[in-house]
């Protein structure tokens, strides 16, 4: 097993998250500019189950413009043994409560807060009755990236990642209640004034199946919409509680091979008529090789199941498709003279366009 965290480490990680992962909030209602967006994303995984939860809050710039009005979305996707369920539900501005400077979001009956060093995540989808109530304990320090420059037409993006947490609680889906105990989890938080005009990404994270393996992986690649220009790319490795090595930019080569044959699950359901039946953006095999400073690692991601979230644009009638691909990842190589290897469950996001 990975070493148990000592109390000072637990406190240090909690303090680090509280100081960096807080809700930024829009200043539109206080005279600031509109267009702010922010989301908190969680992925929880145990054998036979992957759970994706996203709390999204954005300035509602639909006509008529009302400064300060926001739009919330709660996305919950559940993959049980290869079968998907879940949905996205919109939350009206008057049912959104945020605490700027703290980690607290309430979107209708769904809520996220950080208290006593732990995330408490509760989500309820009214229409499907899907419900979850989880406590997530961070096991590693976060990594924060600020003001990442994108295309000239896009404002910078900021993010924070915590690639290893332990989640316990309950999930109610299809009338059945499933208990989770110390399931591995991942969390990220993104915010800024970026849009989908000229911005796309490939993003993934993985942990070993072996709980004794100390490594955690995060891959990020930010591109223009056509995915022909790369604004930044990096492979981040944690060893134990600490971020241990970052290989970036020209140190990385990325290769997409073939096309994933999985039949995708789409939310919201009505958006099925705006997207094709296949997921051309998700490869059959995705390979990242990172070499630099004497280090050399290769990650091979094999997507198996795909759900896609169709996101309507604010700026036109187009849509961006976020493909959430679940699969297996193998990592091999060496870092700082030490062998790195694991095989485990991974989730990658590949962006595309709908009608």
């Amino acid at each position, binding site marked *: 097993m990975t070493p148990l965290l000592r109390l000072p480490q637990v406190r240090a990680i909690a303090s680090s998250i509280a100081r960096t992962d807080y809700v930024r909030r829009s200043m539109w209602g206080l005279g600031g500019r509109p267009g702010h967006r922010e989301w908190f994303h969680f992925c929880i995984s145990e054998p036979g189950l992957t759970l994706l939860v996203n709390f999204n809050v954005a300035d509602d710039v639909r006509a008529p413009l009302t400064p300060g009005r926001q739009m919330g979305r709660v996305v919950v996707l559940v993959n049980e043994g290869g079968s998907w369920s879940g949905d996205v*539900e919109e939350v009206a501005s008057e049912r959104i409560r945020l605490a700027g400077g703290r980690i607290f979001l309430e979107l209708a009956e769904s809520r996220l807060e950080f208290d006593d060093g732990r995330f408490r995540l509760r989500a309820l989808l009214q229409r499907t009755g899907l419900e979850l109530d989880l406590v997530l304990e961070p096991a590693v320090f976060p990594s924060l990236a600020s003001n990442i420059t994108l295309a000239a037409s896009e404002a910078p993006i900021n993010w924070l990642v915590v690639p290893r947490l332990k989640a316990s609680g309950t999930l109610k889906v299809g009338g059945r209640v499933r208990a989770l105990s110390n399931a591995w989890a991942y969390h990220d938080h993104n915010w800024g004034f970026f849009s989908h005009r000229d911005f796309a990404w490939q993003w993934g994270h993985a942990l070993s199946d072996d709980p004794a393996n100390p490594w955690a992986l995060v891959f990020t690649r930010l591109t223009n919409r056509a995915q022909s220009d790369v604004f930044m790319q990096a492979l981040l490795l944690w060893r134990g509680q600490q971020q241990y090595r970052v290989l970036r930019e020209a140190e990385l080569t990325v290769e997409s091979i073939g096309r994933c044959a999985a039949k995708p699950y*789409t939310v*919201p*359901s*009505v958006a*099925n*008529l705006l997207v094709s039946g296949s997921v051309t953006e998700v490869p059959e095999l995705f390979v990242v090789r990172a070499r630099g400073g004497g280090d050399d690692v290769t990650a091979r991601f094999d997507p198996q199941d795909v759900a896609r979230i*169709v996101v*309507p644009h604010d700026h036109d009638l187009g849509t961006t498709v976020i493909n959430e691909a679940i699969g297996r990842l193998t990592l091999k190589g060496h870092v700082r003279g030490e062998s790195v290897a694991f095989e485990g469950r991974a989730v990658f996001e590949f962006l595309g366009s709908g009608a």
Partner: protein
Amino acid sequence: MSEPFALLLSDAFACVARECPAAYRAMRESLGERCVELCVGDERLLVSLSDAGGEVSTSNGEAEVRVRTSDRTLHALLCGHADVLECLLDDTLFVRGDANELLAVADSTTFFIKGAVRCASTPNLLERLERRAHYSEGSR
């Protein structure tokens, strides 16, 4: 007794016109002055779009495009449980018209969906369609 499909369709047009006017304008421009005959279950409707909103009537009249389907198929299509091409091939969705007219109706329908995914009221409209589908299933 389920609500008339004409009422549900009128509300759906009004929803898009109100909550996503850009999509409604694009629907209107794509459809132009064309009229669509839409048969859902036992109801036969004539559908056209004006700047004032969607016009759904039960009057007799000529249409450039004819569409026939069921509440169940419509609901399955909108929920992603069925594929348009498969429904056309198995005759659960019947469409007839000249190619250019069909393309215009298809474009207008796509803009309707683009509007629907942006409307907060869409889930309620889908629930109403689902109730109609259940009712028509039960009364068969």
